[in-house]
């Protein structure tokens, strides 16, 4: 579906945007491939929406270049760029019926009437609202309104579809349904999509690649598993998924066996360590990668800890653990495995992990 041979549909080169002295977007560069679903993920104020707005032409970069389908579009107004955009609050025209809303971009492009009608019908069928054409937007539910907004942004098959937190105003169940729906449309229509969200699970579910934004910069860009399994910065490790952080001291020299002192115990660390030996570091380990064992069947290894609380999650259990240093960690196990270890709050445990799952970042 992603067609690398066609070259990027969108390329950003060194985009910057300042508000006064504050850099909202600070040197952002990336390429979006044909048919790719790329998500900008980040907390509010991280520059992701501003970047999207500059791609749409609704805001102007201070410097840098935006190249859409091989042509620089920096100075083109939004209506001359071949894009479609879905807004968080739908931005449906309240005085037009659903059909007129969807027909609007075709009208602006001078599509012949009969053809336009046919395309509108097809677009409404595509989003599952074939019978709602004559209603006004306010007569639809939030989820239906967002489907109409999708149909309106896709009906003219723009080169690039932009979505600014399109599901942000919907409740959880509806959001998850529409995530799959958008995913399906992306697959079937083979569109290139730039998607903005602050919801990391939404980003992981939907994207081919994710660009994590913080402080106006892209911290890391990669596939969901890249970000989750091999975060490039401590921010990414903390923002994408859940992570236990603990101060640690890296032992040895580069190139040697990699170990770190955690609560006084030497433990294995991933080869990919990003902090220099001998410097203070922070170790990041995902809750589901922690192994718990009772001290009795211990072979001497592992960080000692106390089980403080056991939280029932239905399909899994969360173990709240206190390390000798006082930090609290969290470990998650699937129900069956959790029941097999037979631990209760107050029990002493030992924690260990496979070395590939512990990443060290500079403190």
């Amino acid at each position, binding site marked *: 579906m992603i067609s690398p041979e066609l070259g990027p549909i969108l390329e950003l080169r060194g985009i910057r945007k300042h508000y006064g002295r504050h850099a909202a977007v600070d040197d952002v560069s990336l390429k979006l491939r044909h048919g790719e679903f790329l998500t900008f993920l980040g907390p509010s104020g991280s520059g992701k929406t501003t970047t999207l707005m500059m791609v749409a032409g609704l805001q102007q970069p201070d410097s840098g270049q935006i190249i859409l389908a091989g042509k620089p579009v920096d100075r083109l107004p*939004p209506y001359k760029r071949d894009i479609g955009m879905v807004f968080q609050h739908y*931005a449906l025209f309240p005085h037009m019926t659903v059909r007129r809303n969807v027909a609007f971009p075709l009208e*602006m492009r001078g599509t012949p009437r009969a053809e336009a009608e046919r395309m509108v019908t097809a677009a409404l069928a595509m989003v599952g609202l074939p019978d709602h054409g004559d209603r006004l937007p306010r007569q639809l539910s939030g989820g239906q309104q967002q489907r109409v907004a999708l149909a309106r942004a896709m009906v003219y098959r723009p080169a690039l579809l932009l979505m600014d937190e399109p599901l942000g105003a919907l409740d959880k169940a509806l959001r998850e349904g529409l995530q799959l729906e958008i995913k399906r449309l992306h697959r079937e229509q083979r569109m290139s999509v730039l998607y903005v969200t602050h919801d990391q699970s939404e980003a992981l579910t939907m994207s081919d690649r994710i660009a994590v934004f913080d402080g106006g910069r892209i911290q890391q860009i990669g596939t969901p598993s890249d970000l989750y399994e091999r975060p490039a910065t401590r921010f990414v490790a903390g923002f994408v998924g859940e992570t236990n952080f603990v101060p640690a001291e890296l032992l040895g020299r580069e190139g040697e066996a990699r170990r770190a002192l955690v609560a006084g115990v030497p433990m294995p660390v991933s080869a990919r360590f990003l902090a220099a030996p001998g410097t203070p570091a922070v170790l990041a380990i995902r809750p589901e990668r922690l192994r718990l064992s009772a001290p009795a069947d211990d072979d001497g290894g592992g960080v000692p800890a106390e089980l403080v609380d056991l939280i029932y999650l239905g399909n899994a259990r969360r173990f709240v653990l206190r390390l000798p240093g006082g930090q609290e960690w969290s470990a998650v196990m699937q129900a069956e495995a959790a029941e097999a270890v037979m631990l209760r709050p107050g029990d002493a445990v030992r924690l260990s992990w496979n070395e590939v799952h512990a990443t060290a970042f500079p403190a």
Partner: protein
Amino acid sequence: MGRWRLLRALACTLVGIYLIAPLVVVLIISFSSAAFLRFPPPGFSLRWYANLANDPAWIDATWVSIQVLVPTAVLSTALGTAAALALIRGRLPGAGFLGAALMAPLVVPGIITSAGLYIIYRTIGLNGTLTGMVIGHVVVTLPYVIATVGSALRSLDPRLEAAAATLGAPPSAAFRRITLPLLAPAVLSSMLFAAVLSFDELIVSLFVGSARLRTVPVQMWSNIRGDFDPTVAAIASLCFLVALIALGLEALLRRRNGDRE
């Protein structure tokens, strides 16, 4: 809490009666059969309305009022809408000050505005003319139009225009297809209100009018000041009816726009 609710309901009822009762009384008296303003009337008749229909003074006054209110409403709405667009969408330096300056006739007593108009009209010969009257009425209605259209413009979601732009609409098309239709109810309702205000305007008309150019309120004013009979109540009732119709039309405009307030 119940006690406070009750107190509030009582206060609302009293204020409601206070606001409406005089108008209801006038309405009833206008159908009186008696030549004096006794209440309750001894009997009912339409003689005061017949009186009105046969009195050339009232017919002339009505005609003058219409000749003034129509151009006033149109001009005021056109100028006010344009000004509101400029003030809110124009990114003008000092827009806040300019807007406040255009609102000034709301806080300057009508008697001062009218006396001033009389002075300047005397030098250019506009006193007693329709043109002079219309200009005076535009001055007092313009602030309402600017305020109404301005607040509608402010509450218009700017994302709709942004959405239109991303969908391929150049600014002129976005304005024509999105902004203008969404603004239309506010523009029409401000035109309606300008017409009603012009129809009601007394002081400006009193100053810049003449014995031959008398609007309905001026005619009413001179009648009330003399010995009045229920004919005045009849015209007052008709004015009240006009206001009710205008109010109903306005409500209809709002509902069509889907405004639930």
